[in-house]
């Protein structure tokens, strides 16, 4: 039978070691006193989504085209989009209303993953307390729109990748456009004589999907 209380004394030794080392070893006391001192947020952290715009004017430079892919992919259904219309009632490719209810949002990032225009991204701001729990947490389009520079500030690595991807996409589109113009010019040059009308290509019917019983 060993000495009763030996285990307890050993444990006290560990506690004492931790206590004294916490004064001079950072890994023994990794906490910070929050409101006075703030820990740095790492650039990969995510919180709530925001919308990106290019250029100076938030509304003109808006990347969002109101395709509603994010609205449909959102698991708790916290995104609400209404498409914009011009004075003739024709739809414009931009949202008139784009609301995100941050009291419902669960920061899952699925909206970011489905967006084909790199228009929606995750913010990492965290001090979002508000006096009004209904309207205060429901962010509208103007509150959500943030410039690309802000994105570079909070997620530098991801923003650079996004910019590279967008530049590659734009270059590809430009090349395609040039090729189309070239083809159009060529076609105009050796235009068939009038009277010999080209038949418009018939539209292919989409293949019918088999219905499961």
């Amino acid at each position: 039978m060993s000495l009763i209380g030996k285990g307890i004394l050993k444990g006290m030794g560990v506690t004492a070691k931790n206590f004294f080392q916490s004064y001079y070893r950072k890994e023994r006391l990794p906490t910070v006193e929050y409101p006075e001192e703030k820990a740095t947020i790492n650039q990969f952290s995510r919180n709530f989504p925001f919308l990106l715009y290019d250029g100076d004017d938030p509304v003109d430079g808006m990347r969002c085209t109101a395709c509603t892919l994010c609205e449909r992919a959102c698991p708790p259904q916290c995104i609400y989009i209404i498409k914009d219309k011009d004075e003739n009632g024709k739809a414009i490719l931009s949202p008139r209303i784009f609301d995100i209810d941050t009291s419902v949002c669960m920061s899952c990032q699925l909206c970011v993953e489905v967006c084909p225009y790199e228009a929606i991204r995750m913010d990492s701001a965290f001090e979002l307390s508000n006096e009004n729990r209904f309207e205060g947490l429901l962010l509208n389009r103007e509150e959500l729109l943030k410039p690309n520079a802000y994105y570079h500030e909070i997620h530098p690595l991801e923003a650079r990748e996004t910019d590279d991807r967008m530049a590659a996409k734009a270059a590809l589109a430009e090349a395609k456009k040039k090729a189309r113009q070239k083809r159009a010019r060529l076609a105009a040059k050796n235009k068939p004589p009038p009277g010999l009308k080209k038949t418009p290509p018939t539209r292919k019917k989409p293949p019918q999907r088999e219905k499961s019983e």
Partner: protein
Amino acid sequence: MSPVQTMPPRSYHIGKDDLGADILEVAMGPHHPSTHGVFRMDLKLDGETVVDLKPVFGYLHRNHEKIAEDITYPMSMPFTDRLDYLCGMTNNWAYALSAEKLIEIKVPERAEYIRVIVAELTRLVNHCLLIGFFVNDLGALGTPLLYALREREKILDLFEVLSGARMMVNYIRFGGVRCDPPDGWLKECQRIVDAFPAFLDEYETLLTENEIIIARAQNVGVVTREEAINFSLTGPMLRASGVNYDIRKVDRYGIYDRFDFKVPIGGHGDCYDRFMVRMLEMRQSVKILKQAIRDLPEGEIMGKAPKIFRPAPGEAYGRIEAPKGELGFYLISDGTPIPYRFKVRPPSFVNLTALRHMCLGHKVADAVIILGSIDIVLGEVDR
């Protein structure tokens, strides 16, 4: 092994005791600090002895399964984080595994390794927390718990860099993982894994020989081998009772057949065994992590998953060894992008069924540590 026998009923005198005093009924919880969430135990006490116990739960019911039957398959992934909110990664993996069985997606090598790394890190997180709270329930208020939380914090920081969030990770996707670890992540992971055994040694010096813990936890809440099988316990609970059953070894899902590790098994099935099995399991996790980080290959992280996930009619059950036990997702597809049936087999809910049996005849203070040793998370029990 002898054939499984039914448990003999434990009978206790209910009504009046020898001195004519009444049996006291106590509702312990739902707002009780030791019930680990909103959980209630309706106790019948004879003095301080528990003569009957009824677990009451459902306070955190969030309709997880029914919501999942209303949305498409990939949209359920972030909801699975909220089941066992301490181990988001393993929940993600279990769901992805069953969905991959449903549509037969091949997962690339690198993604499999990353999954193993994050799952074993999650096991460290969970067991750290469990042991901290177990000692907290025993009365060592604060200090050992905070040492455990301090280690857990380092791993959560790793998760934040990898996935963007500390707990609600939403990292694993059907056919792979969401993104590649950024530069320097593996190095940091290696550093934390290498430093972890030192923490375990310190923690064992602090606790495992402590006479108070031994006196309080040994021979308390005993579940024998046969009873453990009858209650269909899984995970560390089952292994503490002496049954060698680990789904990582039995099923060999993912790439667990490539790693060299042992399954710790207890001998008595009491609270102390459950505590020690988890301590030893952490050492084995560190062993797996070292091998996985060493062997991590280069390559793709996403397999060829279809853009619109529309499985053929059929069913699939994917299960993994989550830190708490067998976590399974049962999916039935009717050919639409929305599951027809979505069933979760949560380990802590099934392990909770043994609570009454374990507590009968013990004191109230023991009921608290027995509940602590089961390792329940109410997000998973109530779903």
